[in-house]
């Protein structure tokens, strides 16, 4: 029923909305539509206007009078809930409406509140009618993304701060259960225990667990070996009595001071009753101080032994964590990890070159897979190979043997420095991956000509090669030769595209996510297989189709985008989606490792907070868009 009364009331509503964004920019017709379809509702002070328990959001709320407190529900690991006040002209529940979910926040009237409510159907009609409003809603969602990243940063900043500061109490530093023995235990048993558990020291306690002495590795030489002390004697006869103790509440700084004053390397942390609760070593305190990027690089470059590199690797991990905390994006962090891992790898290669004479041969160390793409996360194993030039065919076998010997040593050292040996034997010490330039070219040509399943799988690993050490131009020649092959063989790219489409984004029709991908881990999504891979696989096809040399997924997308007439916005959205999934992986792996588990890629969507779930869904939609493009390009 449209009449003069409606006209008057609608005009009044328009006059009210007009001064506020986004209504100030909104098309007159759209604003009229909005005003015609809202209903005015009243909520008394204290009333709960909207909250998650009320189910899927059914209306857009625009405050007309009064204040509303919006309180966000704490998500996974988020420190605390935050709340903001909304006033006249402000809208809420846009995010929930767009995603057709219950809201993540609760909205309570702080005083008598009048608000205009636009039913969901009319809300969607309005987003269709008004580009201004549509943009406003989209930006609102983008704001949520930023908000989520800030939340992540806050979370990590807290954890990093806890770890870094010298003000942290000893209680936060000692992590392991202290190992202790009683005074009467024979020396032999104690030393055996220390050897078995790689302990640098052993605390001796009385029956009340109060420390009475400490015995360290350096005492073995001075007090046992040299004087020829019988190993049957009790440990109390050789321990240092009256050990230095501090209360658990004392901080790291106190411990450092005590060590410096007494010239000791261990301080015992005790509780109020004087009972042993942990041991703080000099090294624990060093770790607290953390290391900067430059120091780490310097340390790596100057490292003269594998032992030093082993520590450097741990520092890399610590620093990446700090970077996470400082809000550095996933792309930068993975790149950073790759760079430092490259540095470690190069140093290991250099150290081994001292023992292996490869002089006079042109060769290069190649990395494949995620390392080849500069996208390493905290959990990564080796994927490498060697390319070399053999001028005389008669020397080939012998030269390869020399490289294989060299590679075996490098692979073993990498393993000791935290890059586990590759289970699939994708390593330079594998004779199949230690090849001359011509052999590599033949291998690639073979896969391109005969794209059977194994060849396609290989392509996804080996075509992302990148030179790490030696003659980089060899890798460049490999790349050119590869493009010549793929350029002349459209069928191969089509098969590669088909292979990329074999996994779909885990978006459900009914539920938000499909979590049944892995029967052994119900309720989880493998963010590598069903996340990152969707992007990297698509980007690889785009890159190869347009002769983009880059191996990094973001770089590939960026460079291919121009040739493929991707819009700036679409490109930015895909990259954003990819980076978000990487960020979730990094966080998850870090969390897993902190809890002593091997970092996997299985996340539980249910455990994410509302905002993260929404963004993850959007990220998967972006992956789907890339797949749609592949389907179009290759008529699949």
């Amino acid at each position, binding site marked *: *029923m449209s*009449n003069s*009364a409606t006209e008057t*009331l609608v005009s009044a509503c328009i006059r009210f909305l007009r001064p506020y964004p986004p209504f100030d920019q909104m098309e007159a017709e759209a604003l009229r539509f909005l005003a015609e379809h809202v*209903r005015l*509702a*009243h909520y008394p002070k204290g009333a709960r206007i909207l909250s998650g328990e009320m189910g899927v959001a059914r209306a857009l709320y625009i405050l007309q009078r009064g204040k509303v407190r919006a309180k966000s529900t704490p998500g996974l690991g988020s420190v605390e809930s935050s709340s903001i006040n909304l006033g006249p002209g402000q809208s809420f529940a846009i995010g929930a409406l767009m995603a057709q979910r219950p809201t993540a926040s609760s909205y309570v009237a702080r005083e*008598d509140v009048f608000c205009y409510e636009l039913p969901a159907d009319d809300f969607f009609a309005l987003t269709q009618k008004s580009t201004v409003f549509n943009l406003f809603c989209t930006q609102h969602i983008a704001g949520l993304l930023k908000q989520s990243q800030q939340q992540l940063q806050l979370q990590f900043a807290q954890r990093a701060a806890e770890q870094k500061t010298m003000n942290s109490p000893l209680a936060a530093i000692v992590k392991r259960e202290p190992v202790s023995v009683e005074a009467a235990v024979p020396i032999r048993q104690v030393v055996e225990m220390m050897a078995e558990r790689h302990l640098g020291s052993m605390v001796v306690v009385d029956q009340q667990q109060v420390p009475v002495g400490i015995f360290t590795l350096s005492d073995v030489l001075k007090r046992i070996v040299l004087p020829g002390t019988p190993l049957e004697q009790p440990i109390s006869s050789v321990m240092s009595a009256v050990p230095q103790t501090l209360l658990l509440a004392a901080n790291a700084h106190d411990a450092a001071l005590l060590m410096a004053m007494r010239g000791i390397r261990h301080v015992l942390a005790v509780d109020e009753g004087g009972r042993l609760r942990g041991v703080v070593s000099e090294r624990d305190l060093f770790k607290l101080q953390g290391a900067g990027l430059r120091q780490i690089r310097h340390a790596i470059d100057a490292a003269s032994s594998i032992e030093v590199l082993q520590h450097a690797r741990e520092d890399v991990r610590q620093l990446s964590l700090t970077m996470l905390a400082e809000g550095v994006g996933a792309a930068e962090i993975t790149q950073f990890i790759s760079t430092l891992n490259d540095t470690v790898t190069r140093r290991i290669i250099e150290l081994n070159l001292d023992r292996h004479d490869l002089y006079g041969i042109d060769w290069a160390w190649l990395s494949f897979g995620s390392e080849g793409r500069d996208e390493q996360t905290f959990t990564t194993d080796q994927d490498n190979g060697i390319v070399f030039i053999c001028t005389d065919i008669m020397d080939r076998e012998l030269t390869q043997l020399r490289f294989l010997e060299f590679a075996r040593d490098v692979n073993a050292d990498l393993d000791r420095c935290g890059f586990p040996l590759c289970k699939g034997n994708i390593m330079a010490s594998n004779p199949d991956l230690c090849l001359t330039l011509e052999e590599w070219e033949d291998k690639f040509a073979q896969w391109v000509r005969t794209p059977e399943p194994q060849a396609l799988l290989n392509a996804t690993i080996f075509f992302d090669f990148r030179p790490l050490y030696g003659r980089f131009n060899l890798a460049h020649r490999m790349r050119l030769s590869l493009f010549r092959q793929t350029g002349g063989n459209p069928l191969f790219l089509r098969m590669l595209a088909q292979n990329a489409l074999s996994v779909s984004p885990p978006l459900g029709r009914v539920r938000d996510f499909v979590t049944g991908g892995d029967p052994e881990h119900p309720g989880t999504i493998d963010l590598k297989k069903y996340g990152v891979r969707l992007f990297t696989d698509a980007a690889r096809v785009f890159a190869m189709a347009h002769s983009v040399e880059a191996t990094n997924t973001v770089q590939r997308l960026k460079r291919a985008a121009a040739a493929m007439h991707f819009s700036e916005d679409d490109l930015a959205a895909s990259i954003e989606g990819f980076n978000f999934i990487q960020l979730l992986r990094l966080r998850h792996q870090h969390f897993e490792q902190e809890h002593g588990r091997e970092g996997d890629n299985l996340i539980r969507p249910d455990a994410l907070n509302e905002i993260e779930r929404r963004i993850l869904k959007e990220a998967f939609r972006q992956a789907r868009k890339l797949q749609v493009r592949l389907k179009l390009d290759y008529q699949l």
Partner: protein
Amino acid sequence: MTWLSRFLGGQDASSRGLTARQAQSIAGWRHLPEPDPHRSHYRCRYVVVDVAATGSDVNVDRLRSIGAVAVVDGQIDFKDALQLAVADLAPARASPPAAGEEEGGRTATVDALIAFLGFVGKGRLVAYNAPFVERMIERALDESLGIRLGLQWMDLAWVLPDLWRQVDAGQGRLDAWLDHFGIDSMQRHDALSDAFATAQLLQVTLAQALRKGFETSASLAALEKARRHMHQSG
């Protein structure tokens, strides 16, 4: 048999020159079911009415316009609102208009009042200072259509002071209450504007009534009756 002739739109209607369609509309309105007064405020339709008149004397002044805004399930939908101008049909006019003009004015007024009936249906009527509004409307209906509305009115002027005993709203003027709750009127003394402002006042009232345990229009009617009684006997 008067009720039957009225029902059939008989002499009574025809004597007032109503067309068959007009008579039928009125008959249709008569047969609407009465609303259940025991439904929650948030499950029923209230119709807030205000009028503009030539003055404030019920016995002398004439109705000029009606503004009505519905509050359905506690919410105001702008599409569910009505504004009507009523031509002055007072017989005692200084200069009688020409016959044709008179006839045209009469038809327009009859149609306007029928539209009002259609809008109100048998909803619960609400007004601020209801007796004045009620008498203005009943007289116009009686003169033009020969019927009585016969619906119960809720008078916010009586209900409000009981729900907010601590509030001193001046001499019980509408302005004072609107000020107190920060409700703006678009244009004071315009029937629709005031009806809209009063409708928002009703929203506030319903929330407070619910809080105090008056969950239905019947319970508010009882509250109003008790207060009137106390007031008149005290």
